[in-house]
């Protein structure tokens, strides 16, 4: 069972309070009607499934209720970083540094 740091509660809490909410940083365009089928497919259906760092969303659903983002290493389950919804995606350089 994971121990997850919630960036809003500023504390570590048990996984039982959280719900995973899929991949992070998928942009939902405001003008969706104009999207091509290919763009819609990429946005809605296609997901990464890395052996390595996963950028994912969690919701502290049985806690503060907030959605937030996390970098989790799928091999070790280590959370390299958690950050609030709306904050920028960490650069690949930053992710590489965090892995070390």
């Amino acid at each position, binding site marked *: 069972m994971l121990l997850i740091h919630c960036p*809003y509660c500023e504390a570590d809490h048990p996984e*039982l309070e959280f719900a995973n909410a899929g991949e992070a940083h998928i942009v939902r365009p405001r003008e969706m009607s104009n999207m091509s089928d290919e763009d819609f497919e990429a946005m809605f259906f296609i997901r990464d499934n890395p052996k390595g760092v996963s950028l994912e969303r969690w919701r502290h659903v049985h806690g503060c209720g907030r959605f937030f983002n996390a970098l989790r290493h799928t091999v070790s389950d280590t959370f390299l970083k958690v950050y609030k919804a709306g904050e920028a995606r960490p650069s690949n350089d930053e992710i590489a540094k965090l892995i070390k």
Partner: protein
Amino acid sequence: MAKSPKATRVLPNQDHLTSNAFVTLEAAPAASRISLRASPRGAAAFAKNIGFDLPAKPSTSKSKSGVVALWLGPDEWMVFSESEPEKSLQPRRDHREYSATDISHRNTAYIVSGSGAQATLNSSCPRDLSQATFPVGACSRTILGKAEVILYRTGKEKFRVECWRSFAPYVWGLLVSGAQDANL
């Protein structure tokens, strides 16, 4: 027009009470409650209604004259009062910066007290409830078994457990079961 009969209020956990050498479990009295969701400005505006600032730090509470405000999230508080359970804490008018929704009847509460209170809760709650991490005055939404609850530590050996009314029999069952194993 015919005179309408006056309705009576029945709590979902009325008369629930049990205890052993280590822990006492009892239903909390009726309370007036609101769920407050607010922007920072809204929180300041709402504070005027209750006469004190809302707690701003995660998992902390504040209270004054029988009105208690629990921090539940960065834009969410539960405000409750047992002193006037039939009087709504909801302001008269909607506000542009907050939402105050009456949940007096949505929730109900149990009081868990005694030297085995923490052990009783930890039979079903995965939280670290030691005084170092969950001191007196701490509060948080969490889970008890499969039920979502709000824990509020009102004393060294005393907790308030809020849950939705239909979960109350289940929560009670878990607490009774936990109390049987509270002697260590």
